[in-house]
């Protein structure tokens, strides 16, 4: 079945898998490590404080999430209608609404 993986690309309507390269994984892994070390230093060594620290931490997490999606989960390599991307965006919209909505509504809840 090795042939399937190596020679069938031309006819593939495939999305993820089958197209990743070692280089891509190594770059993704290296960026992920950097994006993990920076927040650790910011939070543990007190490089930044307050809002700026929160922005850096959340920013690094979101970037690393993007690295996982692009370098490891091959989101870019979808062909044809991008159903994977569309469902992902729907999911993110719902997730952000739940989290941001909960924070907002509880911050303005006089009973809590």
């Amino acid at each position, binding site marked *: 079945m090795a042939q399937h993986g190596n020679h069938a690309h031309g006819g593939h309507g495939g999305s993820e898998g089958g197209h990743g390269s070692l280089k891509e994984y190594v770059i993704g892994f290296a960026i992920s490590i950097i994006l993990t070390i920076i927040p650790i230093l910011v939070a543990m060594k007190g490089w930044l404080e307050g809002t700026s620290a929160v922005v850096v931490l959340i920013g690094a997490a979101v970037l690393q999430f993007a690295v996982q999606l692009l370098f490891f989960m091959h989101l870019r390599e979808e062909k044809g209608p991008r159903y994977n991307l569309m469902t992902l965006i729907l999911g993110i919209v*719902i997730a952000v609404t739940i989290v941001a909505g*909960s924070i907002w509504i509880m911050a303005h809840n006089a009973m809590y």
Partner: protein
Amino acid sequence: MAHSHPHAQHPAHGEGHYGHHDLEELRKFGFWIFLITDCILFSALFAVYIVLHGSTAGGPGPKEIFEMPGVIVETFILLTSSFTSGLAVLAMNAGSRKGLIGWLIVTILLGACFIGLEVTEFVKLAEEGHTISSSAFLSGFFTLVGTHGLHVSLGIFWISAVIIQLVRHGITPVTKRKVQITSLYWHFLDAVWIFVFTIVYLMGVM
């Protein structure tokens, strides 16, 4: 997914030639939709934790009870396992069953180390009297982190089952798809852990 609607996109392509491949692609897409719903589940647990993390019922808060060295080690272990699960897919695409199974075993061993460290952390907290019923903060914490841990544990069993199928059937279009979706699942769990690590642990001890 490109050929799911052959009539709209490629009227010349018959279902016969692309049919089987399409089915496997469609199954992968079905799994992707599951991941999105799992993402929504975790967002609800994150929302609960964020809202309740200050409600410690007079008990200790995140700063007092989290021990960061262990958690940082867990983070790097899971990140490395996400990488090795990618290497497994690369080995599979190169047609190497040995390499594929080898990297999958490395991945589940790293996953087991992660779970081992997490269980150790939970047991230590419980011994110190910090249980799920101690405060709203700890309820939210154990539910969120525990749900992620259960996902990783399930992933370990699942990848083990796929390894058994690979040993018995080799790399076929079906086992290939199974490896690809377990790999997606594993990358997804690492992505969720990034947010657990950042929001629960790093922001907790800041």
